């Protein structure tokens, strides 16, 4: 599903992350690593938001660099600490993403409802708490029909009830559309909730597939 080809990310002269050649099959992955190990760097690079040397391919052929638009239609990302223009309402952000990713009309409604966002989705984002903002960014990542959804630290800022709903969304999309996921966290994986998750580890400035 995802292939790293001579991936190298430097910050100045510091080689932050190097992945020579790694293939990850379809499925759900739990990306582990201590603070500062480079989890966000990896996810942002795979999302096409951060430049790097080498290439990342989706399904063997779609390159984040050479096929920029198509790749971005198929890979979506939710930031750890999202920041959106404060004057837009949640609904306006949803419309923007839905249009860009070619989402089916009304796709967002069940997500808004299940996450209980009806009361504030039409208010400006400037009035949101960090948890509300986080829920919005998670919802945005599910719009359209991405083949890979990257969630950076989805467990932080949202409450336990919302977290269970998020797991439900993930399971549904995996079963119905075969969507792949990479979730980053410094917490341990809960096998009871995500029994089939694979595990990726960032350590010593490189990425390995551990389970």
């Amino acid at each position: 599903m995802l292939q790293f080809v001579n991936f190298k990310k430097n910050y100045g002269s510091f080689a932050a992350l190097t992945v020579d050649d790694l293939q990850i099959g379809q499925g759900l992955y739990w990306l582990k690593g201590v603070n500062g190990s480079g989890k966000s760097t990896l996810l942002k690079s795979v999302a096409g938001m951060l430049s790097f040397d080498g290439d990342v391919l989706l399904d063997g052929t779609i390159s984040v660099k050479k096929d920029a638009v198509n790749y971005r239609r198929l890979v979506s990302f939710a930031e750890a600490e999202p920041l959106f223009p404060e004057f837009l309402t949640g609904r306006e952000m949803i419309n923007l993403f839905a249009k860009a990713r070619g989402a089916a009309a009304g796709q967002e409604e069940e997500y808004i409802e299940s996450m209980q966002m009806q009361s504030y989705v039409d208010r400006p984002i400037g009035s949101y708490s960090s948890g509300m903002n986080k829920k919005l960014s998670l919802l945005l990542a599910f719009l359209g029909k991405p083949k890979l959804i990257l969630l950076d630290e989805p467990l932080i800022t949202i409450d336990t009830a919302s977290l269970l709903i998020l797991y439900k969304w993930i399971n549904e999309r995996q079963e119905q559309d075969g969507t792949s996921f990479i979730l980053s966290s410094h917490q341990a994986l809960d096998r009871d909730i995500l029994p089939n998750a694979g595990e990726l580890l960032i350590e010593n400035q490189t990425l390995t597939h551990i389970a």
Partner: protein
Amino acid sequence: MSSPLTNVLNKVFVHGFYRAHAGMFLFIFLVLFGAVPGDMLLNYHKALMLAFLTSPLLLAVVFVFWLLYIVKSWHYIAGQLAAPHHQFLFYSVSAYSKRSQLLSWLGIQFNILLPIVIYGGLAIGVGLTHQCYLASAGIVIYLLGLSIVSALFCIRLTQALPEGKQLSLFLRFGKSMPKPYFSLFIWHIFNQKKVAYTIIKVISWGVITAVFALFDDVKHDARVAGIAVLAIVIAHVVIIFEERTFEETFLRFGRNLPYSRASLFGGFVLVYLAMLLPEIIWLFTRFDPVFAMELTLFALSAIMLFHSLLYRIGLNMDVYMQWVLGLFMLIFWVVMFKAMLLASALCVLAAFILFYNNYYNSFAVLPEREIIE
């Protein structure tokens, strides 16, 4: 030794103020010192100073300019105080004694007013050697008064708790209007950058008026109109920088959306077209349509070059200003050789190449603590 309070306030407000207004200072510098040949510079400024030292009316005009400057600084300080990462000031500054707060803020005012203090000091020197004692004393009193009033105003700002965020009137009116991705910066201006935008339009108006007052043959000489348009573009470089900062802060998600680089580039052209609308209307009322169209294309090409450049060099105002100055001189000379269309073509070509190659590689230098996480 300065107190820790002065130190923090200096770092937050004074450094930031000069960085944020580098474009304005560059513009004023060009106007004050670039417009006069080097050998006449001293006499010209001496004559200018004597003119306002001996005429109460002109002195009042100068005082109004200084007042505008300090009002601009209030606006900046109030804006910074409202930023989330400066909220700590509300519960730290107010814990100091009134006296040390006043002294610290006076120091900050002095640093912010420094360009005016130096200029005013020179004017006083000229005044004293030419027996203009009253006007010289007036300048001293006025500047002292400004500093004290301004310091008191800043203390009040840190004591009044920030109100909840309220959308500007434009945004409440535009509630049901569609807001496509490219238009977001224009909404941002309407929401938060109205003052900056108005000031730029006033500068533009000043440039236009001055060009028409100084050059009689402006209608027949394409070069004069071209230089005026270039000056208008230079007046916009700060808001271009602002656009990139906004994009790098609030529109980071855009780089993950499936927009082609050509359509993103086109979107930015539309943004600047909307932003330059007042000037474009002026061009079409003053010149024949073909020439007005050429000038509009020239303005847009040059502005896109200054925009795209930032993807390459990052959000570093100091470096940016050096490039702006260099490119200004280069484009200036191409226009002087009556090659405005060539200048437009080169600008837009360079802009597109810079944009295409750097859009996904661009980086923000702003957060100096860019950490890996």
